[in-house]
């Protein structure tokens, strides 16, 4: 059989979603941002809700998410995405709203906006990319950076006695009564990507049910550039280290805590 015989419309088994354009992504190869972009846009397309969706981009590596996502979007100041989302959702309760935030954005400068948005139970989806570092600004320590981990602002390793502990903000969020769904996912293997996509779908389905509570999905991701590893090494390191402190899995569903959120070390 010739190649031309195979490349035919009827033989297509996978197509890139129309909601991502053809611009080359600004992310490093192997970074989780690109994969989360893809499954997020695929989900909007599959649910057919893209025309009613407004996304909020953060300040961080995903600052230009709106360059790639073919939906209406707003770009927030560093950490303020949940406030923008609140502002929009309150005046358009029937539209779908999501924020997309890094760990510096969500768990440092934007902690107050994130916590209070969730405490009000804003009917939005918060997508939280936890790569344990400040990617965009070149690899400084994030609130999520693991104990002992070396970054450009913790060159001798994170010393918890002076720099504080890596924050499990997702577990804190899960404590809030107005939060409906909290899960921790990753996109480092095909199986993980499928599970992660199912979580996004569930969150939008919940959002469709009207104001009931906030949905919050954390994605453990590598920042191979910031960690100074290859993408493959970074994913392996993540499985061996990150997953022990930030344990993947569902934490809360339909307002019920599914496991003791304070994980034993």
């Amino acid at each position: 059989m010739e190649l031309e015989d195979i490349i035919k419309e009827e033989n297509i088994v996978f197509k890139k979603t129309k909601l991502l354009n053809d611009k080359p992504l600004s992310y490093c190869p192997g970074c989780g941002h690109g994969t989360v972009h893809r499954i997020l846009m695929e989900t909007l397309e599959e649910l057919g809700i893209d025309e009613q969706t407004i996304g909020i981009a953060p300040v961080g590596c995903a600052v230009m998410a709106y360059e790639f996502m073919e939906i209406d979007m707003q770009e927030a100041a560093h950490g303020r995405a949940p406030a923008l989302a609140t502002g929009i959702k309150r005046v358009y309760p029937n539209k779908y709203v999501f924020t997309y935030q890094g760990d510096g954005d969500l768990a440092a400068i934007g902690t107050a906006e994130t916590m209070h948005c969730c405490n009000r139970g804003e009917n939005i989806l918060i997508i939280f990319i936890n790569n344990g570092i400040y990617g965009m600004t070149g690899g400084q320590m994030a609130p999520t950076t693991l104990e002992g981990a070396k970054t450009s602002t913790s060159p001798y390793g994170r010393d918890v006695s002076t720099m504080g502990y890596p924050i499990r903000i997702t577990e804190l969020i899960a404590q809030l009564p107005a939060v409906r769904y909290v899960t921790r996912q990753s996109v480092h293997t095909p199986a993980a990507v499928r599970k992660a996509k199912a979580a996004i779908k569930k969150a939008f389905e919940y959002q469709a049910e009207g104001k009931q509570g906030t949905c919050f999905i954390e994605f453990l991701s590598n920042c191979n550039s910031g960690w100074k590893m290859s993408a493959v090494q970074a994913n392996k390191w993540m499985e061996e280290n990150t997953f022990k402190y930030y344990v993947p899995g569902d934490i809360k569903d339909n307002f019920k805590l599914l496991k003791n959120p304070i994980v034993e070390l």
Partner: protein
Amino acid sequence: MSELRLMKGNEALAEAAIRAGVDAYYGYPITPQSEVMEYLMAANPEKTTGMVVLQAESEVASINMVYGAAGAGKMAMTSSSSPGVSLMQEGISYIAGAELPCVVVNVVRGGPGLGTIQPSQADYFQTVKGGGHGDYKLITLAPASVQEMSDFMRLAFELAFKYRNPAMILSDGAIGQMMEKVELFDPIPRRTDEEVAQQCPWATTGRKRGTQKRVITSLRLVASVQEEFNIKLQKKYKQIQENEVRCEMIGCEDAQFVIVAYGSSARTSMKAVELARKSGLRAGLLRPQTLWPFPTKELRSLAERGVQGFLSVEMSAGQMVEDVRLAVNGRSRVEHFGRMGGVIASPSDIFEALKQFAAGEKKLF
């Protein structure tokens, strides 16, 4: 129906917001303007006009909620007082950079720092010279009565949407707290979602397939693109300067000395002008209703006509006086008189200062 009521300035402003068809108020309590949100919460317009009223966790959050709603084409506003407005500066700069229409109200109190809850006009520089980062301008309205607290609410939104630019109502604790008769304008219905989509094609309301996506952003990474945008902003600002100056002139036709004052200072200054006239001193008052754009031309033509001196009366160490000097440009004498820290100069204090000023005195306080 237009309606006559006795109200506090802050309440009149809140009522006017409902009547102007505002879609959302996001705020955080602070004296001396907490009545704005209290009035709105009690009026509960969500049940009548559908206006959203939400108490945010901070002024940082409020202004960013305003950003979100404004970016989706809705009429959104917030109000605060000096320390809270300082916290909003980041958001205001982003709003200016994303060219979003919205209204921010500052009922100014004395500073710096936590300062005092008494009235002040010391946030003039912050409002008209920037406040946040980058080259931007806020359309700034300065009400001097409870009536104007109501009227300027509607006007601020009109101007904000006309130019896709944030507008500030720069009031002060005295105007916010005092009670006066106010004629409230007839309610204007809130725009429907269809009207919003039609009037604001740039707004993020969800991209229809086959159409261009809308992006609200203030990010322009390439220097030449950013500069192009800066030039566009400056053109817009020039247009606003040419078309939107508003001021009131009283007794300026034959005045030898003109007091320049806005907000509650204009009220005490008006009395001082009356005292001066009675004493035979030909005084007048120029009251800017827009602080930016500033009535530069009006002041200049008074100077050209031969006014001997301009006395800028402000509740600050002298801020607007710099703009008066720039306008007069050396043609006549310009000085400042004012009290600070929440102290209000009485009409007789101002009259005394004016007399000294007319006699050639320089140091007035």
